[in-house]
């Protein structure tokens, strides 16, 4: 039972990452693409982490997975802001 929930979460997460990639291909400008990439991918990674935590079934690994996810959340939010600011500055200077 727990295993099927774990796999379900992993595949849902992969779905979100795929959605982020599709957004990267389809969306018109860089700000939109940034938005698709950082939001959908992080949600996907969160699902994969929680699914894998169930599959591994050890609390120490679950804590590590949670840490990794929180770290990626923090950095990619900040990095998305930096990239957007970089583009904005460039456009303003033109």
């Amino acid at each position, binding site marked *: 039972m727990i*295993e099927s929930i774990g796999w379900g979460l992993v595949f849902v997460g992969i779905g979100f990452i795929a959605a982020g*990639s599709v957004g990267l291909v389809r969306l018109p400008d860089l700000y939109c693409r940034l938005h698709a990439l950082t939001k959908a991918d992080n949600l996907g990674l969160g699902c994969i982490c929680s699914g894998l935590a169930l*599959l591994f079934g050890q609390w120490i690994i679950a804590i590590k997975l949670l840490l*990794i996810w929180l770290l990626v959340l923090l950095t990619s939010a900040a990095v998305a802001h930096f990239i957007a600011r970089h583009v904005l500055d460039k456009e303003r200077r033109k």
Partner: protein
Amino acid sequence: MSISTLAVLALNILLAAVIIGLLRAFWGASLEDRMLSVLLIGTGGVAITLLLSFALAAPALLDVALVMALLAAVAVIALTKGDASDD
């Protein structure tokens, strides 16, 4: 379906999803699009490494994912912040 088959299937789908985004970022030739490709392969790479650590039963790969997440962030900050003055 056995567990290992499920794992490697998940890995394949995940890699395909990352590649779709990567190809767009390669041929969208602007500099920032390529930064997006670093971001994508950073997050997607962490996800793939985590899945690999389960599929290969190698918990040491969790540390690899952690270092990857940290260093990809530092690299992108260096890209966007390093040259604000002379670009």
